[in-house]
C-alpha cells in the first residue's frame, strides 16, 4: 500500500531563508508525485507534479522539487522564502497506473516571519 511521510510538521523561517521540506513515499512500483499548498483561508492548490522525465521539477512561485528514486524522496525547495509563502504544504503520491488515487502526507505548516 502507498504511504507518504512528511517529517517536518512545523517549520518557522525568516524571510529570505532557504526552504527544504522533506517528503518520502513508500511504494514499490512507479509513482507520480505532487506538492500541494493551502494558503490561509484558501483552497488546496497544486504547486508542482512529477510523472516522469527530468527528476528536477519546477513549479509555481519559485518552488522546485527533486525526485530521488534511490531515496524514495521528493523534497520541496525554495531558495528564498517570502512572508506570502506562509501556508500548509502537502506532499502526495499516486500509482502510475489507472486512475489517479492521491495519498497525502500529514502536511507541514510553514510560518515565514517578516
Amino acid at each position: 500500500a502507498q504511504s507518504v511521510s512528511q517529517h517536518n510538521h512545523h517549520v518557522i523561517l525568516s524571510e529570505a531563508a532557504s526552504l527544504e521540506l522533506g517528503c518520502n513515499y513508500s511504494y514499490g512500483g512507479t509513482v507520480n508525485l505532487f506538492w500541494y499548498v493551502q494558503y490561509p483561508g484558501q483552497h488546496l492548490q497544486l504547486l508542482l507534479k512529477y510523472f516522469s522525465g527530468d527528476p528536477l521539477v519546477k513549479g509555481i512561485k519559485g518552488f522546485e522539487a527533486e525526485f530521488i528514486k534511490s531515496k524514495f524522496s521528493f523534497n520541496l525547495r525554495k531558495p528564498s522564502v517570502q512572508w506570502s509563502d506562509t501556508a500548509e504544504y502537502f506532499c502526495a503520491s499516486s500509482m502510475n497506473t489507472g486512475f489517479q488515487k492521491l495519498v497525502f502526507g500529514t502536511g507541514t505548516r510553514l510560518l515565514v516571519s517578516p
Partner: protein
Amino acid sequence: EAGVAQSPRYKIIEKRQSVAFWCNPISGHATLYWYQQILGQGPKLLIQFQNNGVVDDSQLPKDRFSAERLKGVDSTLKIQPAKLEDSAVYLCASSLDQLAGGQIRGEQFFGPGTRLTVL
C-alpha cells in the same frame, strides 16, 4: 473559469444525526473525488467517481457514509448517523481526465471544503 463549489461551508450537528454535503465540479470534469481531512492529517480519499460511476470507494465507511453522482455532474455525500470521529473537513475535487503514458492523468482542483463538527 468557475472553481469547484461546495455547500454548506460549515455544519454543526449532534451525534446520531444525519448530514449531507453538496459538490458542483468544474464544468466538463468527468472525475469527482470526495476527501476527508481530519485535523492534523492530510486529506484521505473516500470515494472517486468517473462520470456517474464509482471508480474507488474502498475507504468509504459504507455502514454510515453514502455518495452519489446522478447525471455525472453534481454529487452529494451523506453521513447517517454521524459519530464524533466524523468531525473533519470534507473536500470535493474534480479533474479533467487526460490519457497519457497509459494512465489517466489530470490535475485535481479542490473546493473550499465543508467543515463538519459533530457534538
